[in-house]
């Protein structure tokens, strides 16, 4: 199973590709993608014989077939594949669970628990889906989505707010604010 995936991601095994692709469509791509659907993205596959005891952190999208005893701190999307086992907490932008997780799961964007999954622990994510068939014992907390999108709000606010003020001569501070906001 892992080998099939490997051959898929072999040709484009570049981290930069993954990051730019992910950055281009951060919201258009919900993390519900199956490993096979991830083909256009470069991703990192941790095969089923791998056992990590300790703390992992990474930015590249990650598909785990192996076993992790410890926590995962990730800034991209993490998929615990069928057969993958995590004993510990998982933090990531988006998390898909098809395997087994004993621990809490915290996603800044979304968390998906697939039918084959076993999850014993809590979920914290603004978007959560638990598919019929999944085994889940724990509680779900949904923080307000505003926190996830807080970076974009100021941009929208500052630009229109600056417009009415522009009747008066634009001060340097206003200009800086508009330009600074526009840069984001």
């Amino acid at each position, binding site marked *: 199973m892992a080998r099939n995936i490997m051959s898929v991601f072999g040709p484009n095994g570049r981290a930069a590709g993954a990051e730019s692709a992910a950055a281009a469509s951060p919201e258009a791509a919900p993390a519900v993608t199956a490993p096979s659907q991830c083909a256009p993205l470069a991703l*990192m596959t941790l*095969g089923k014989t791998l056992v990590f005891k*300790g703390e992992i952190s990474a*930015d590249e999208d990650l598909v785990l077939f192996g076993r992790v005893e410890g926590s995962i701190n990730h800034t991209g999307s993490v998929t615990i594949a069928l057969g993958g086992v995590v004993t510990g907490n998982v933090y990531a932008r988006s998390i898909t669970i098809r395997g087994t997780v004993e621990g809490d799961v915290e996603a800044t964007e979304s968390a998906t628990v697939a039918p084959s999954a076993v999850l014993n622990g809590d979920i914290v994510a603004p978007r959560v889906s638990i598919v019929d068939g999944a085994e889940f014992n724990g509680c779900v907390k949904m923080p307000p989505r505003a926190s996830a999108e807080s970076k974009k709000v100021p941009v929208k606010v500052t630009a229109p707010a600056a417009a009415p003020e522009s009747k008066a001569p634009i001060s340097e501070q206003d200009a800086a604010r508009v330009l600074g906001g526009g840069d984001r």
Partner: protein
Amino acid sequence: MDSSDKPKDDGSVLGPTLRFKGELTAGEDLLIEGQIIGTIKHSRRLTIGKQGHVKAQIEGHIVSIAGTVEGDVQAQTSVAVMETGRLSGDIRAPSVSIVDGADFSGNVIMDTSKRARGAGRDTDKR
């Protein structure tokens, strides 16, 4: 990237953004481009890629180093330090190759008969 690293057709790649602290065991070919601190126990071919940075005790079957390793390396078959490799630590293997250009400081212990020789010199078990 696709210069000398064979294991990626068949095995796992730990990408350059990966950081791991702890104990890693694996039974498949592995290419490490990330940062690992701790110990690695491996039963097949292990490659530390050019971007790889490992501060660990490594036990493997076939180990080739194109990145940076701080720690002792023990292999059942062979250890190769590539041109881009930097290793500070001891090598213990029946077959060792160090390519011209490699940066290596440490001892080489070749266990041509049996691999458990020289254990008295080193504090680690085995």
